């Protein structure tokens, strides 16, 4: 009987010792954090803000779980490991999403720049073909100055694309396109007005 009690006690001590000596998943934690860091530096903080916040929340919860387990007599880090693994998988899964969104934003900015360039060119062509005369030369000069201002702003869009500020570039390009469109509309309106006045003067004759 005495031997039995000793066996039980030793067994319990071994179990307790084994459970108490369970190590926190530091390596897994570091690896997971590295994955999150990597996806952040790839642009998750810009292109997947909500998803990144979710991952960070998961990591914080895993850390809490580790701390809770560290304080226990019978430590069990399985749940923490599971949470860390989930966060790591989430970070890995987010990489292609970030890459796709970044590429979309880039293509959108490039398309925006092309549209802005086309809008400025169209306005310049319209202006170049506008009938020049005493009545229009001042307006043509003024609109030409407007278009020069727009042309000078185009390299700024390219610089933003080069520095990967795709959203900013798209915004800037959009504003330039809109202004160029306004100038084109002014030129067209002036041309229509001139054409109308020519018709009227012909009728008068």
């Amino acid at each position, binding site marked *: 009987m005495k031997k039995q009690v000793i066996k039980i*006690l030793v067994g319990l001590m071994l179990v307790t010792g084994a459970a108490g000596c369970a190590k926190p998943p530091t390596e897994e934690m570091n690896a997971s954090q590295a994955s999150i860091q990597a996806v952040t530096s790839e642009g998750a903080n810009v292109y997947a803000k909500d998803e990144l916040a979710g991952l960070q929340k998961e990591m914080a919860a895993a850390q809490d779980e580790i701390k809770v387990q560290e304080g226990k007599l019978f430590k069990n880090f399985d749940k923490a490991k599971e949470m860390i693994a989930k966060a790591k998988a989430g970070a890995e899964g987010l990489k292609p999403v970030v890459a796709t969104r970044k590429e979309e934003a880039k293509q959108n900015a490039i398309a925006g720049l092309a549209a802005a360039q086309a809008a400025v060119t169209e306005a310049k062509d319209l202006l170049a073909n506008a009938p020049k005369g005493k009545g229009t030369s001042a307006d043509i000069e*003024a609109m030409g*100055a407007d278009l020069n201002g727009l042309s000078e702003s185009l390299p700024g869009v390219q610089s933003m694309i080069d520095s990967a500020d795709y959203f900013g570039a798209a915004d800037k390009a959009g504003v330039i396109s809109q202004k160029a469109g306004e100038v084109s509309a002014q030129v067209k309106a002036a041309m229509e007005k001139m054409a109308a006045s020519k018709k009227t003067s012909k009728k008068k004759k």
Partner: protein
Amino acid sequence: MRHLTFAVLLSLLWLFVASCSNTPIPSELSLVASQEEMLRRDGASIYAPEEFISICKEHRDIKDRLFKEQARFAWFRNYELAQIEYRYLADRGQLLLQYVKDERARRNNSVTSSLASHEKKSAALLTLACSINEGRVARRSLTRAELLIDEARVLLEKEKHKSALLLLNDAEYYLKSAERSLRVVAGRYTDRSQISHWQHLVEAARRESRGSHAPSILVSKLDRKLIVFRNGVETHTYRVGVGRNGLKDKLRSGDQATPEGRYRVVKKVPGSHFFRALLINYPNEEDLRAFSLAKKKGIVSKRAGIGSLLEIHGGGKDGVTDGCVALDNRDMAEIFEMANVGTPVTIVGSMSYDNIVSAAFGKL
């Protein structure tokens, strides 16, 4: 012996149960956690980064202490301190939430008001630039300023206040540049002594026509008006166009400016290239003196000529000329009939201080 074994097992069971029992943790923990989430979402890291970091750190520290407390033997667990700390942190969080809300609104207002001020300036300068032939000199800068203002508006919608303000600063540079260009051209039109001089010329023209049925012609360049006086009374008013650099006082040949001063019609040209024309005696003695002085001062080159053949002619009021005063042909026909050789022609910059230039610069 059995009793001993039973006692040991019972003790172990009690130990196990006691260590595993869950004393409820303070409810404030979840409140603080959700508060932190709200702060993050509301942009506390932007509007109050230091306080936000401090609160997050404090939260972690309290949580660590809570976990340590949680790890203690059930009978000795005491969450009172943690609860107090959490309550204190929740109060701090609440204050920060309010501050973030206020700061966000403050920055929003600040950018909105700066945007409005820039828009007002830009609109005033554009109105002026569109009203005068020389407006082209400012249009390039104005366009760049307008683009930046529009971009800032987009950023304001996205609540990127800092970036929006930076763009508005850049816009300010272009607005100032546009303003400088316009002041060089039109600054005289806000100068009270200059305007007073022009007003004397206007009065002289009016006086000259008194007691005479002969017309006296007055041209106000900024107002783009040609007025005919008879007997000191304004009888006709017409719209006119002036030189490409018409707001300037003509100084030399080719400057495309429209001269200012008192002249007379020296020739009537019925078959002008521009419908009909009245040639005036530019340069008069005053113009010759000013030209000679400008040459001496090196303002104009030694080889420059003073220019000639300044006319009031037809061809259309909407055009820009090389310095002449242009009217629509129908109006020119009327004036041609009224004027004779010797008819006085007075050309001034503006008749009043309350003009578009003063109004535009007054809004800046």
